[in-house]
Protein backbone atom coordinates (compact mmCIF):
# COMPACT_ATOMS: atom_id res chain seq x y z
CA UNK A 1 0.00 0.00 0.00
CA UNK A 2 2.77 2.39 0.82
CA UNK A 3 4.32 1.76 -2.56
CA UNK A 4 1.37 3.47 -4.18
CA UNK A 5 2.30 6.75 -2.54
CA UNK A 6 4.43 7.92 -5.44
CA UNK A 7 1.99 10.57 -6.61
CA UNK A 8 1.90 13.97 -4.89
CA UNK A 9 -1.25 12.95 -3.06
CA UNK A 10 -0.92 9.85 -0.89
CA UNK A 11 -2.72 6.79 -2.19
CA UNK A 12 -5.97 5.66 -0.62
CA UNK A 13 -5.46 3.32 2.25
CA UNK A 14 -8.57 1.16 2.52
CA UNK A 15 -9.92 0.74 6.03
CA UNK A 16 -8.85 -2.50 7.68
CA UNK A 17 -8.57 -4.33 10.95
CA UNK A 18 -6.52 -1.53 12.39
CA UNK A 19 -9.58 0.74 12.28
CA UNK A 20 -11.29 -1.50 14.79
CA UNK A 21 -8.53 -1.07 17.33
CA UNK A 22 -9.75 2.06 18.99
CA UNK A 23 -7.48 3.84 21.39
CA UNK A 24 -8.51 3.59 25.05
CA UNK A 25 -10.62 6.46 26.29
CA UNK A 26 -8.94 6.24 29.68
CA UNK A 27 -6.81 3.54 31.25
CA UNK A 28 -7.94 0.18 29.92
CA UNK A 29 -11.37 1.47 29.03
CA UNK A 30 -12.08 1.56 25.32
CA UNK A 31 -15.12 2.74 23.38
CA UNK A 32 -16.75 -0.72 23.15
CA UNK A 33 -16.43 -1.13 26.91
CA UNK A 34 -18.22 2.16 27.46
CA UNK A 35 -20.83 1.20 24.90
CA UNK A 36 -21.54 -2.08 26.67
CA UNK A 37 -22.17 -0.30 29.95
CA UNK A 38 -24.13 2.45 28.23
CA UNK A 39 -26.34 -0.05 26.40
CA UNK A 40 -27.19 -1.86 29.63
CA UNK A 41 -28.08 1.43 31.29
CA UNK A 42 -30.30 2.75 28.51
CA UNK A 43 -32.08 -0.60 28.07
CA UNK A 44 -32.86 -0.82 31.75
CA UNK A 45 -33.90 2.83 31.90
CA UNK A 46 -36.13 2.44 28.85
CA UNK A 47 -37.85 -0.65 30.22
CA UNK A 48 -38.29 0.95 33.62
CA UNK A 49 -39.86 3.92 31.90
CA UNK A 50 -42.36 1.75 30.07
CA UNK A 51 -43.62 0.14 33.29
CA UNK A 52 -43.58 3.18 35.55
CA UNK A 53 -47.33 2.94 35.92
CA UNK A 54 -48.54 -0.33 34.43
CA UNK A 55 -52.18 -0.32 33.39
CA UNK A 56 -54.58 -2.73 31.78
CA UNK A 57 -55.04 -0.31 28.93
CA UNK A 58 -51.42 0.52 28.17
CA UNK A 59 -50.00 3.98 27.64
CA UNK A 60 -47.98 4.57 24.51
CA UNK A 61 -44.66 3.79 26.18
CA UNK A 62 -46.06 0.77 27.98
CA UNK A 63 -47.37 -0.46 24.67
CA UNK A 64 -43.90 -0.17 23.14
CA UNK A 65 -42.30 -2.05 26.02
CA UNK A 66 -45.01 -4.71 25.87
CA UNK A 67 -44.63 -5.05 22.13
CA UNK A 68 -40.90 -5.64 22.44
CA UNK A 69 -41.40 -8.11 25.24
CA UNK A 70 -44.31 -9.64 23.37
CA UNK A 71 -42.34 -10.26 20.18
CA UNK A 72 -39.72 -12.26 22.06
CA UNK A 73 -42.34 -13.92 24.22
CA UNK A 74 -44.90 -14.88 21.61
CA UNK A 75 -43.10 -15.18 18.31
CA UNK A 76 -39.70 -16.42 19.45
CA UNK A 77 -39.92 -18.16 22.80
CA UNK A 78 -43.36 -19.71 22.49
CA UNK A 79 -42.82 -21.00 18.96
CA UNK A 80 -39.32 -22.32 19.58
CA UNK A 81 -39.48 -23.69 23.10
CA UNK A 82 -43.04 -24.83 23.56
CA UNK A 83 -44.80 -25.45 26.83
CA UNK A 84 -42.11 -24.20 29.20
CA UNK A 85 -41.32 -21.04 27.27
CA UNK A 86 -42.30 -18.56 29.97
CA UNK A 87 -39.27 -19.44 32.09
CA UNK A 88 -36.89 -18.31 29.37
CA UNK A 89 -38.65 -15.17 28.22
CA UNK A 90 -36.73 -12.82 30.56
CA UNK A 91 -33.36 -14.17 29.42
CA UNK A 92 -34.30 -14.05 25.75
CA UNK A 93 -35.80 -10.58 25.97
CA UNK A 94 -32.81 -9.17 27.81
CA UNK A 95 -30.52 -10.84 25.28
CA UNK A 96 -32.47 -9.48 22.33
CA UNK A 97 -32.48 -5.95 23.73
CA UNK A 98 -28.77 -6.12 24.56
CA UNK A 99 -27.85 -7.40 21.09
CA UNK A 100 -30.16 -5.02 19.27
CA UNK A 101 -29.00 -1.87 21.02
CA UNK A 102 -25.33 -2.75 20.71
CA UNK A 103 -25.78 -3.58 17.04
CA UNK A 104 -27.69 -0.39 16.34
CA UNK A 105 -24.87 1.58 17.92
CA UNK A 106 -23.23 0.91 14.56
CA UNK A 107 -25.46 3.43 12.81
CA UNK A 108 -26.43 5.81 15.60
CA UNK A 109 -24.78 9.15 14.86
CA UNK A 110 -21.79 10.03 17.05
CA UNK A 111 -21.60 6.48 18.40
CA UNK A 112 -21.32 4.67 15.07
CA UNK A 113 -19.53 1.61 16.28
CA UNK A 114 -21.23 -1.76 16.51
CA UNK A 115 -19.97 -3.16 19.79
CA UNK A 116 -19.98 -6.71 18.52
CA UNK A 117 -17.58 -5.99 15.68
CA UNK A 118 -15.24 -6.92 18.49
CA UNK A 119 -15.69 -10.66 19.02
CA UNK A 120 -15.19 -10.81 22.78
CA UNK A 121 -18.79 -10.31 23.90
CA UNK A 122 -20.27 -12.51 21.13
CA UNK A 123 -17.95 -15.28 22.34
CA UNK A 124 -19.04 -14.70 25.89
CA UNK A 125 -22.76 -14.63 25.03
CA UNK A 126 -22.49 -17.71 22.83
CA UNK A 127 -20.61 -19.45 25.66
CA UNK A 128 -23.42 -18.48 28.01
CA UNK A 129 -26.00 -19.90 25.62
CA UNK A 130 -23.90 -23.08 25.19
CA UNK A 131 -23.75 -23.57 28.96
CA UNK A 132 -27.47 -22.92 29.26
CA UNK A 133 -28.76 -25.34 26.64
CA UNK A 134 -26.33 -28.12 27.58
CA UNK A 135 -27.18 -27.69 31.24
CA UNK A 136 -30.90 -27.82 30.48
CA UNK A 137 -30.50 -30.89 28.27
CA UNK A 138 -28.43 -32.82 30.80
CA UNK A 139 -30.70 -31.81 33.64
CA UNK A 140 -33.77 -32.92 31.73
CA UNK A 141 -32.57 -36.16 30.13
CA UNK A 142 -29.36 -37.11 31.99
CA UNK A 143 -26.02 -37.04 30.23
CA UNK A 144 -26.62 -40.20 28.15
CA UNK A 145 -30.15 -39.22 27.28
CA UNK A 146 -29.04 -35.77 26.23
CA UNK A 147 -26.25 -37.20 24.08
CA UNK A 148 -28.74 -39.50 22.45
CA UNK A 149 -31.04 -36.63 21.63
CA UNK A 150 -28.17 -34.56 20.26
CA UNK A 151 -26.30 -37.20 18.27
CA UNK A 152 -28.60 -40.19 17.77
CA UNK A 153 -31.46 -39.28 15.46
CA UNK A 154 -34.09 -42.05 15.26
CA UNK A 155 -34.72 -44.30 12.26
CA UNK A 156 -31.24 -44.11 10.77
CA UNK A 157 -29.43 -47.24 9.48
CA UNK A 158 -26.29 -48.16 11.38
CA UNK A 159 -23.87 -47.49 8.53
CA UNK A 160 -25.21 -43.92 8.26
CA UNK A 161 -24.73 -43.48 11.99
CA UNK A 162 -21.04 -44.09 11.63
CA UNK A 163 -20.71 -40.79 9.91
CA UNK A 164 -23.87 -39.02 11.07
CA UNK A 165 -23.28 -39.29 14.80
CA UNK A 166 -19.87 -37.58 14.79
CA UNK A 167 -21.25 -34.86 12.54
CA UNK A 168 -24.23 -34.34 14.81
CA UNK A 169 -21.97 -34.22 17.84
CA UNK A 170 -19.63 -31.69 16.26
CA UNK A 171 -22.41 -29.52 14.90
CA UNK A 172 -24.73 -29.64 17.91
CA UNK A 173 -22.25 -29.64 20.75
CA UNK A 174 -19.04 -28.12 19.48
CA UNK A 175 -19.85 -25.79 16.61
CA UNK A 176 -23.07 -24.15 17.72
CA UNK A 177 -21.41 -21.55 19.96
CA UNK A 178 -18.77 -20.93 17.32
CA UNK A 179 -21.24 -20.28 14.52
CA UNK A 180 -23.50 -18.34 16.84
CA UNK A 181 -20.78 -15.93 17.87
CA UNK A 182 -18.97 -15.69 14.54
CA UNK A 183 -22.18 -15.02 12.62
CA UNK A 184 -22.89 -12.05 14.80
CA UNK A 185 -19.31 -10.83 14.91
CA UNK A 186 -18.77 -11.31 11.18
CA UNK A 187 -21.89 -9.40 10.20
CA UNK A 188 -21.09 -6.50 12.48
CA UNK A 189 -17.46 -6.43 11.48
CA UNK A 190 -18.14 -6.59 7.76
CA UNK A 191 -20.94 -4.06 7.94
CA UNK A 192 -18.84 -1.57 9.78
CA UNK A 193 -15.99 -2.12 7.38
CA UNK A 194 -18.30 -1.52 4.45
CA UNK A 195 -19.55 1.75 5.89
CA UNK A 196 -15.98 2.81 6.67
CA UNK A 197 -15.02 2.05 3.13
CA UNK A 198 -17.72 4.23 1.62
CA UNK A 199 -17.35 7.10 4.04
CA UNK A 200 -13.57 7.16 4.25
CA UNK A 201 -13.32 6.53 0.52
CA UNK A 202 -15.66 9.42 -0.18
CA UNK A 203 -13.69 11.60 2.15
CA UNK A 204 -10.44 10.66 0.41
CA UNK A 205 -11.93 11.33 -3.03
CA UNK A 206 -13.27 14.70 -1.98
CA UNK A 207 -10.41 16.10 0.07
CA UNK A 208 -7.19 14.17 -0.62
CA UNK A 209 -7.25 12.95 -4.18
CA UNK A 210 -5.91 15.20 -6.96
CA UNK A 211 -8.15 13.89 -9.70
CA UNK A 212 -11.14 16.10 -10.38
CA UNK A 213 -13.08 13.06 -11.53
CA UNK A 214 -12.71 11.51 -8.10
CA UNK A 215 -13.86 14.71 -6.45
CA UNK A 216 -16.98 14.73 -8.62
CA UNK A 217 -17.62 11.10 -7.88
CA UNK A 218 -17.29 11.61 -4.13
CA UNK A 219 -21.01 12.30 -3.49
CA UNK A 220 -21.83 8.90 -4.95
CA UNK A 221 -19.58 7.28 -2.40
CA UNK A 222 -21.41 9.18 0.38
CA UNK A 223 -24.76 8.28 -1.15
CA UNK A 224 -23.77 4.63 -1.15
CA UNK A 225 -22.66 5.08 2.44
CA UNK A 226 -26.17 6.26 3.29
CA UNK A 227 -27.79 3.41 1.36
CA UNK A 228 -25.61 0.92 3.17
CA UNK A 229 -26.39 2.55 6.48
CA UNK A 230 -30.03 1.60 5.93
CA UNK A 231 -28.96 -1.85 4.84
CA UNK A 232 -26.84 -2.16 7.97
CA UNK A 233 -29.78 -1.15 10.13
CA UNK A 234 -31.66 -4.08 8.65
CA UNK A 235 -28.71 -6.47 9.10
CA UNK A 236 -28.23 -5.37 12.69
CA UNK A 237 -31.85 -6.03 13.60
CA UNK A 238 -31.87 -9.34 11.77
CA UNK A 239 -28.65 -10.53 13.40
CA UNK A 240 -29.94 -9.75 16.88
CA UNK A 241 -33.15 -11.56 16.01
CA UNK A 242 -31.34 -14.61 14.60
CA UNK A 243 -29.09 -14.87 17.64
CA UNK A 244 -32.09 -14.92 19.97
CA UNK A 245 -34.09 -17.18 17.67
CA UNK A 246 -31.29 -19.75 17.56
CA UNK A 247 -30.80 -19.54 21.30
CA UNK A 248 -34.48 -20.27 21.79
CA UNK A 249 -34.27 -23.09 19.28
CA UNK A 250 -31.31 -24.68 21.09
CA UNK A 251 -33.16 -24.45 24.40
CA UNK A 252 -36.21 -25.96 22.73
CA UNK A 253 -34.31 -28.95 21.34
CA UNK A 254 -32.66 -29.57 24.71
CA UNK A 255 -36.06 -29.71 26.40
CA UNK A 256 -37.81 -31.76 23.74
CA UNK A 257 -39.34 -35.02 24.91
CA UNK A 258 -37.77 -38.13 23.44
CA UNK A 259 -39.79 -41.26 22.87
Amino acid sequence: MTTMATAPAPGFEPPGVADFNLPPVFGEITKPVLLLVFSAIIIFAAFRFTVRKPALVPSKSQFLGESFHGIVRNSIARDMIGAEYLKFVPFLTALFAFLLVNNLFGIIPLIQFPTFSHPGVPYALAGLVWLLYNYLGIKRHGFAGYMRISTWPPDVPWWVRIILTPIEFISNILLRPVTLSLRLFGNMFAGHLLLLLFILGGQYMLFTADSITLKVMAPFAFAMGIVFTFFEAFVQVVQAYIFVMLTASYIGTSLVDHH
Partner: protein
Amino acid sequence: MTTTLLAAEELNPLAPHPIEIIVGLIAFLLLFWLLKRTVFPQFEKVYAERVDKIEGGIKRAEEAQEEAYVLRQQYEDQLAGLRAEAARIRDDARAEGQQIKAELRAQAEEEAERIRQRGHEQIAAAREQVARQLRAEIGGISVQLAERLVGRELSAETRRTETIDAFLAELDELAERRETAPAAGGAS
Protein backbone atom coordinates in the same frame (compact mmCIF):
# COMPACT_ATOMS: atom_id res chain seq x y z
CA MET B 1 9.75 -8.24 19.56
CA THR B 2 7.03 -8.08 22.16
CA THR B 3 5.56 -5.01 20.53
CA THR B 4 5.38 -6.63 17.11
CA LEU B 5 3.80 -9.69 18.68
CA LEU B 6 1.34 -7.51 20.49
CA ALA B 7 0.63 -5.59 17.32
CA ALA B 8 0.12 -8.79 15.35
CA GLU B 9 -2.13 -10.11 18.07
CA GLU B 10 -4.20 -6.98 18.14
CA LEU B 11 -4.57 -6.97 14.40
CA ASN B 12 -6.28 -10.35 14.47
CA PRO B 13 -9.96 -9.40 14.39
CA LEU B 14 -10.95 -12.73 15.88
CA ALA B 15 -8.94 -12.14 19.03
CA PRO B 16 -11.21 -11.08 21.88
CA HIS B 17 -10.45 -8.23 24.22
CA PRO B 18 -10.61 -9.64 27.75
CA ILE B 19 -11.93 -6.44 29.27
CA GLU B 20 -14.85 -6.44 26.86
CA ILE B 21 -15.70 -10.01 27.81
CA ILE B 22 -15.65 -9.14 31.50
CA VAL B 23 -17.53 -5.87 31.22
CA GLY B 24 -19.92 -7.26 28.61
CA LEU B 25 -20.82 -10.29 30.70
CA ILE B 26 -21.27 -8.27 33.85
CA ALA B 27 -23.33 -5.64 32.05
CA PHE B 28 -25.52 -8.23 30.36
CA LEU B 29 -26.06 -10.42 33.40
CA LEU B 30 -26.79 -7.43 35.57
CA LEU B 31 -29.23 -6.13 32.98
CA PHE B 32 -30.88 -9.53 32.74
CA TRP B 33 -31.16 -9.87 36.50
CA LEU B 34 -32.58 -6.39 36.98
CA LEU B 35 -35.08 -6.72 34.15
CA LYS B 36 -36.14 -10.14 35.34
CA ARG B 37 -36.69 -8.85 38.84
CA THR B 38 -38.32 -5.52 38.19
CA VAL B 39 -39.69 -5.08 34.68
CA PHE B 40 -40.78 -8.38 33.16
CA PRO B 41 -42.97 -9.47 36.09
CA GLN B 42 -44.93 -6.27 35.53
CA PHE B 43 -45.49 -7.17 31.90
CA GLU B 44 -46.57 -10.68 32.79
CA LYS B 45 -48.87 -9.33 35.47
CA VAL B 46 -50.52 -6.98 33.03
CA TYR B 47 -50.91 -9.78 30.45
CA ALA B 48 -52.45 -12.06 33.05
CA GLU B 49 -54.81 -9.32 34.20
CA ARG B 50 -55.77 -8.55 30.65
CA VAL B 51 -56.41 -12.19 29.84
CA ASP B 52 -58.41 -12.53 33.01
CA LYS B 53 -60.37 -9.41 32.22
CA ILE B 54 -61.18 -10.49 28.69
CA GLU B 55 -61.91 -14.11 29.47
CA GLY B 56 -63.79 -13.15 32.61
CA GLY B 57 -65.79 -10.67 30.56
CA ILE B 58 -66.63 -13.27 27.97
CA LYS B 59 -67.59 -15.75 30.66
CA ARG B 60 -69.74 -13.22 32.45
CA ALA B 61 -71.44 -12.31 29.18
CA GLU B 62 -72.15 -15.96 28.48
CA GLU B 63 -73.61 -16.39 31.93
CA ALA B 64 -75.80 -13.34 31.48
CA GLN B 65 -76.97 -14.65 28.14
CA GLU B 66 -77.78 -18.02 29.63
CA GLU B 67 -79.72 -16.34 32.39
CA ALA B 68 -81.59 -14.17 29.91
CA TYR B 69 -82.43 -17.23 27.87
CA VAL B 70 -83.82 -19.03 30.89
CA LEU B 71 -85.84 -15.96 31.86
CA ARG B 72 -87.21 -15.61 28.37
CA GLN B 73 -88.22 -19.24 28.34
CA GLN B 74 -89.91 -18.69 31.67
CA TYR B 75 -91.76 -15.62 30.42
CA GLU B 76 -92.84 -17.38 27.28
CA ASP B 77 -94.17 -20.28 29.29
CA GLN B 78 -96.00 -17.90 31.56
CA LEU B 79 -97.35 -15.96 28.62
CA ALA B 80 -98.61 -19.12 26.95
CA GLY B 81 -100.28 -20.12 30.20
CA LEU B 82 -101.87 -16.71 30.50
CA ARG B 83 -103.08 -16.79 26.93
CA ALA B 84 -104.69 -20.16 27.46
CA GLU B 85 -106.23 -18.88 30.67
CA ALA B 86 -107.58 -15.80 28.93
CA ALA B 87 -109.04 -17.90 26.13
CA ARG B 88 -110.65 -20.17 28.64
CA ILE B 89 -112.14 -17.26 30.54
CA ARG B 90 -113.45 -15.78 27.32
CA ASP B 91 -115.05 -19.05 26.31
CA ASP B 92 -116.58 -19.41 29.72
CA ALA B 93 -117.93 -15.91 29.58
CA ARG B 94 -119.38 -16.47 26.14
CA ALA B 95 -121.02 -19.70 27.22
CA GLU B 96 -122.35 -18.06 30.33
CA GLY B 97 -123.66 -15.12 28.31
CA GLN B 98 -125.40 -17.49 25.94
CA GLN B 99 -126.96 -19.28 28.83
CA ILE B 100 -128.05 -16.10 30.50
CA LYS B 101 -129.56 -14.88 27.26
CA ALA B 102 -131.42 -18.14 26.76
CA GLU B 103 -132.67 -18.05 30.33
CA LEU B 104 -133.80 -14.47 30.00
CA ARG B 105 -135.59 -15.20 26.78
CA ALA B 106 -137.32 -18.18 28.27
CA GLN B 107 -138.27 -16.09 31.26
CA ALA B 108 -139.54 -13.30 29.05
CA GLU B 109 -141.51 -15.71 26.94
CA GLU B 110 -143.00 -17.23 30.03
CA GLU B 111 -143.89 -13.84 31.32
CA ALA B 112 -145.44 -12.84 28.04
CA GLU B 113 -147.38 -16.07 27.97
CA ARG B 114 -148.55 -15.47 31.49
CA ILE B 115 -149.63 -11.92 30.68
CA ARG B 116 -151.45 -13.09 27.61
CA GLN B 117 -153.08 -15.83 29.65
CA ARG B 118 -154.17 -13.36 32.24
CA GLY B 119 -155.50 -11.07 29.52
CA HIS B 120 -157.52 -13.97 28.11
CA GLU B 121 -158.76 -14.85 31.57
CA GLN B 122 -159.75 -11.29 32.29
CA ILE B 123 -161.51 -10.99 29.01
CA ALA B 124 -163.28 -14.29 29.61
CA ALA B 125 -164.20 -13.21 33.13
CA ALA B 126 -165.51 -9.88 31.87
CA ARG B 127 -167.56 -11.58 29.22
CA GLU B 128 -168.88 -14.00 31.75
CA GLN B 129 -169.82 -11.16 34.01
CA VAL B 130 -171.43 -9.19 31.20
CA ALA B 131 -173.26 -12.24 30.02
CA ARG B 132 -174.44 -12.93 33.53
CA GLN B 133 -175.55 -9.35 33.97
CA LEU B 134 -177.19 -9.26 30.58
CA ARG B 135 -178.97 -12.44 31.28
CA ALA B 136 -180.33 -10.99 34.47
CA GLU B 137 -181.21 -7.67 32.91
CA ILE B 138 -182.69 -9.08 29.75
CA GLY B 139 -184.99 -11.13 31.85
CA GLY B 140 -186.17 -8.04 33.72
CA ILE B 141 -186.33 -5.90 30.57
CA SER B 142 -188.22 -8.54 28.69
CA VAL B 143 -190.74 -8.67 31.51
CA GLN B 144 -190.99 -4.91 31.50
CA LEU B 145 -191.46 -4.80 27.74
CA ALA B 146 -193.98 -7.51 27.91
CA GLU B 147 -195.85 -5.67 30.66
CA ARG B 148 -195.97 -2.53 28.62
CA LEU B 149 -197.08 -4.32 25.56
CA VAL B 150 -199.74 -6.05 27.51
CA GLY B 151 -200.72 -2.92 29.41
CA ARG B 152 -201.54 -0.92 26.28
CA GLU B 153 -203.83 -1.64 23.46
CA LEU B 154 -202.23 -3.81 21.00
CA SER B 155 -204.52 -2.47 18.39
CA ALA B 156 -202.61 -0.63 15.92
CA GLU B 157 -199.50 -1.81 14.25
CA THR B 158 -197.99 1.66 14.54
CA ARG B 159 -198.62 1.99 18.25
CA ARG B 160 -196.97 -1.32 18.86
CA THR B 161 -194.01 -0.19 16.84
CA GLU B 162 -193.91 3.14 18.69
CA THR B 163 -193.94 1.38 21.97
CA ILE B 164 -191.07 -0.86 21.02
CA ASP B 165 -189.08 2.07 19.68
CA ALA B 166 -189.67 4.09 22.84
CA PHE B 167 -188.66 1.21 24.90
CA LEU B 168 -185.46 0.77 22.90
CA ALA B 169 -184.66 4.48 23.20
CA GLU B 170 -185.21 4.25 26.93
CA LEU B 171 -182.85 1.36 26.96
CA ASP B 172 -180.31 3.37 24.98
CA GLU B 173 -180.57 6.19 27.48
CA LEU B 174 -180.05 3.77 30.19
CA ALA B 175 -177.03 2.35 28.41
CA GLU B 176 -175.48 5.78 27.97
CA ARG B 177 -175.94 6.53 31.62
CA ARG B 178 -174.21 3.35 32.68
CA GLU B 179 -171.38 3.69 30.15
CA THR B 180 -170.34 0.07 30.39
CA ALA B 181 -170.54 -3.16 28.54
CA PRO B 182 -174.34 -3.53 28.94
CA ALA B 183 -174.66 -1.11 25.94
CA ALA B 184 -173.07 -3.78 23.78
CA GLY B 185 -175.20 -6.35 25.49
CA GLY B 186 -178.24 -4.19 24.80
CA ALA B 187 -177.28 -3.93 21.15
CA SER B 188 -177.02 -7.68 20.80
